[in-house]
């Protein structure tokens, strides 16, 4: 009787110590879910979801404050991936946040630009170069197409131009599977 008690107590202490050690040793820093969600988001940093950037939106989704259908640049595919990751039902994009558009980049009309620097301050990824009273221009490879520079421009010289397909971005189509007619 006593030996049984001792064995059980000994086991409990040993397992408890092992678990305690594992909890300290393999401690997970930060919330890995936020990073996983952030990796799916398109990093446009446009704020259309109602949060100041993709990371805050990812944090909000992880904590349950935001829904998964608030990201227009991510589009339907992005929502599907989020639904898969979080084990939730797919739902269409919330129209309040905007609509899915083809990828565009901002273009500054250099004849109209007055060099006010307001767009430079608005750009979340520092993709606009220029100085006060000097013409500004957009570095198109870095532009995420967030449209945040459109509103501050006092002379409306910024337009969004859709990015065309080039040989480098062209994709082969999914091979069409012809359907045979029934005999």
């Amino acid at each position: 009787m006593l030996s049984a008690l001792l064995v059980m107590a000994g086991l409990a202490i040993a397992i408890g110590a092992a678990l305690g050690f594992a909890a300290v040793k393999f401690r997970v820093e930060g919330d890995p879910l936020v990073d996983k969600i952030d990796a799916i988001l398109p990093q446009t940093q446009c704020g259309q979801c109602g949060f100041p950037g993709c990371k805050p939106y990812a944090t909000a989704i992880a904590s349950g404050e935001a829904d998964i259908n608030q990201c227009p640049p991510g589009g339907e595919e992005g929502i599907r991936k989020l639904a898969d990751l979080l084990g939730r039902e797919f739902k269409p994009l919330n129209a309040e946040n905007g609509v899915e558009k083809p990828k565009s980049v901002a273009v500054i009309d250099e004849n109209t630009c007055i060099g006010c620097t307001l767009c430079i301050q608005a750009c979340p990824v520092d993709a606009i170069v220029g100085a006060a009273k000097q013409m500004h221009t957009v570095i198109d490879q870095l532009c995420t197409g967030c449209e945040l520079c459109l509103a501050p421009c006092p002379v409306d010289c910024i337009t969004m131009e859709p990015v065309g397909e080039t040989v480098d971005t062209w994709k082969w189509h999914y091979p069409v599977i012809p359907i045979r007619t029934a005999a």
Partner: protein
Amino acid sequence: MQRKLFKFNGGVKPATYKTDSTREPIKAVPLPAQLIVPLHQHVGGTPYPLVETGDVVLKGQRIGAADGNVSSAVHAPTSGRVVAVEPRVMAHPSGLTTLSVVIEPDGEERWIDCEPISLRAMSPDQVRDELRDAGVVGLGGAVFPSHLKLKPANGGTDTLVINGAECEPFITCDDLLMRERAEQIIRGAEIMQQLLQARRVLIGIEDNKPEAIAAMQHAVSARAAGSMEVVAVPTRYPAGGAKQLIRVLTGIEVPHGRRSTDYGVQCFNTGTAYAIADVIDRGRPLVSRIVTVAGNVERPGNYEVLFGTPMNHVAALAGIKPGTDRFIMGGPMMGFRMPAYDVPVVKATNCILVGSPELFPPPEPEIGCIRCGECARACPADLQPFELYWYSRAKNFGKAQEYHLFDCIECGCCAYVCPSHIPLVDYFRFSKSEIWARERQKHAADVARDRFEFRNERIEREKREKAEKLAAKTAASRAAASMAAAAAPAGTSDHSEDSKKALIAAAMARAKAQREAIAPQNTEALPPDQQAQIVNADAHRAAIAPADGNIAAQPTEKSPAEG
């Protein structure tokens, strides 16, 4: 001496259809009305144009300069006038346009001053730069800039392989080039051997080209090139694939994720060797190549074609038969259907295959995979095409990559043997381009995330620095004031009150000094009436202002009592 040859796994033996186009020698092509020279003709950066509409160019004049190191130059294929620099449909299955220089030939074919390049007087780096500026790229079909491949590998180059296998049906351009211009190919190989410092040169030619083998052997012995050897390799598609030919000639099997240069082997096409000799010995940049015209034509043959010549102009010389419904660039196994008949011949065009429904009947409908494993037996890259097919079809790209999708050379052996007529290569191409697109997207997102986070950090830092500066400034002025207060004989009981007062007094003194420091401007040489006005205003100001500058002691409060 019979050399020991090795074998690669898989491969197929399709009918070669090569005899028809090898009956006649290489023929010249009359100048077309216009040459459309695309600037993007190779792997790497698109060259930027050096000419404008209206410019007169000479044959061999550089019209596009290499953009960065992984790029190559483009030259005017004939003398004439530039009539446009604009996007034109390119020889690519997408049918997209690319910036092209349209030249109207003047018919004189005037060359630029061609200076042969002395290999002795130049460093290898300079020679490589010359080759880049001469627009030399791999003419076997991959069009990779050759100057990048001509650097000796870290472990040294042992073997230079010259690829004259030309395994794909219908194509005979390398065959004819070897038969007719073997000497210059050997000369090019010597130059490459010198640049690479390779110990030996192996020239691999499929044994269905006895004339080419004989011509090359003759040229090797004529040049007394001791370290060179012409080797006949068994005819089996795709013996002309770089990795397959290296395997057959040297027995080295290049594993996944490595390059042949890691094993001291470098491989070049015969056409590239010929072009390099042209550049070094004659100073002539790459402006033309040999193109096979075959398929649904009256007189299949080989032509020396200037880049930019419309394909239908070349094909018409061979007599296009009725029923033609497509042009294919390349052969029937790996070629691409062209979006139009008048797309220009580019550096990658080894063959214009004129197609018709009789010659290439529409593929039979695809039926389900029966897992027979024929494709795996035929695959020369030792892959499992059926696995790749399932994962590509299910768009499970991660799994497809695990099965080494990117080792697929798209040779088409698997689709050739498939009893279910599955267009396997189409699936693999689709998967590859989807994966590339995703990687580009992911890269763009990562860059955007980094830049966004950096910007936030910068804004935070600027805020912090501003606050710190302000704090330091206030602290400094406080310290100065308290020093002043300590110097004055003041009670220590309410020190903070005193220091505050001292601060205010100091600020007021500063403001006063500033006010007085402002000198009146534009007051010289005024008319007397204005001068009088100023004097009056000054007097008024002096009258209303209290002598000690204390605003609280102004007489306005007293005025009601006086009244």
